[in-house]
Every structure is written in structure tokens, then in C-alpha cells.
């Protein structure tokens, strides 16, 4: 049973608009969340993280929102750029209990010029 779900396999957005990537999780004990970006034939690269004590974390064009009651997080990219076209993975962990991260299946984002 998938503990971390990314229900949209793909998403297309116009350049300059907002991209919103969603992630749902089933384990209410998860306390730390990561977003990674992956280009073809490369390893994932870290984008942004959020702890369960926060509901928002911002880094430049990237903002992650966490809704603990809904067990949902989202990554907002504003404005979207063609270089943002990649697969985005959400990951979650019971970090404070020393558990490893569980990754979702990813969402492929295409930013159209």
C-alpha cells in the first residue's frame, strides 16, 4: 500500500504561470517532508523541505504548503520556467523516530514556452 501518493502522473503549465504539484500521505506520524526534482538520466536533486511544525516553507520561486489535518502537501512554483520541466518526487518520513524517507511515484511537469 502506497504511503505517499502523487495522484497526477503529469501536469502541463504555461511559462510564467503557477505550477501546483500535490502529494498525499497516509501515515499521520510522518513529521518531515521533502521535494525532489529529477531530470532524465540524472539523479534526483533536493528542492525544498518542510517539518510538521510548520505549514509553509519558501525558497525563491518554490513554496511548500503542509496541511496536516488533510495529510496533504503541495509544491508551488511561481513563475514556472521551461527549465522546471522535470519529474517531481515528494518524500515523507517519521524523521524524529529515525525512519528512512518514503518516496511517491512522481509527477512529470512540463512547462510550455
Amino acid at each position, binding site marked *: 500500500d502506497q504511503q505517499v501518493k502523487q495522484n497526477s502522473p503529469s501536469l502541463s503549465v504555461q511559462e510564467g504561470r503557477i505550477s501546483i504539484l500535490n502529494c498525499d500521505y497516509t501515515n499521520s506520524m510522518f513529521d518531515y517532508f*521533502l521535494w*525532489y526534482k529529477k531530470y532524465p538520466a540524472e*539523479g534526483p536533486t*533536493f528542492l525544498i523541505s518542510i517539518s510538521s511544525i510548520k505549514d509553509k516553507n519558501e525558497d525563491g520561486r518554490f513554496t511548500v504548503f503542509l496541511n496536516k489535518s488533510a495529510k496533504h502537501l503541495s509544491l508551488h512554483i511561481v513563475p514556472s520556467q521551461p527549465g522546471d520541466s522535470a519529474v517531481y*518526487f515528494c518524500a515523507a518520513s517519521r524523521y524524529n523516530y529515525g525512519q*528512512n524517507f518514503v*518516496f*511517491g511515484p512522481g509527477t512529470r511537469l512540463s512547462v510550455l514556452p
Partner: protein
Amino acid sequence: EADIYQTPRYLVIGTGKKITLECSQTMGHDKMYWYQQDPGMELHLIHYSYGVNSTEKGDLSSESTVSRIRTEHFPLTLESARPSHTSQYLCASRKETGQNYGYTFGSGTRLTVV
């Protein structure tokens, strides 16, 4: 410049062959990981290590084995490759200080067993 290196990047090998996928990191991280990913699927943890002489199996059962004799080196070995082992293998390490508790990944090895 990459701080974690995986070789080879691509490998096509015949059934029954023994192979070792190399992973080295220069960051001094204690924790290292191997993930397996099929196209369009999530990353599955197959092995991890919390330090020298420490190795554990991950969430996904794997016929591969790993060793951790040095902090910087975490090779993965398949004694007898099969077509079902065809996948992408990603090595990662992790630091636990500062804001980023996440992984640094290598570029991956795409393995095809024919």
C-alpha cells in the same frame, strides 16, 4: 561538481553475470542508501548503511548485496543478474545538520539485463 559518484552510468549485461555497481561520496556522510526505480514508479529503498560495517535491507526485497568497508564507498553487487533486475539504481547519502535533512543522489546506473 558531483559530490556522489556512481559508475557505470549505463550497463547492458547478460543473464547470469556478476556485477558490481559503484558508489562513492566525498562529503563524509555516514548514512548511505541504494534505491531502485522503474520508469514512472516510486523510488524503492533496497539497502542502507548508517556507517562503516553497518548494512541493512530496505523496504523492497532485493537479491543484491552491499558492503560498507569505508565511509565513502558503498558498492552494490548482484551475484547472478537476471532480466528482472533491469532497472535504474540510485545511490544517495545524507547529512543531518542544518536545514536540509535530505539526500544527495548520484546520477544513477541504468542496468539492462538481457
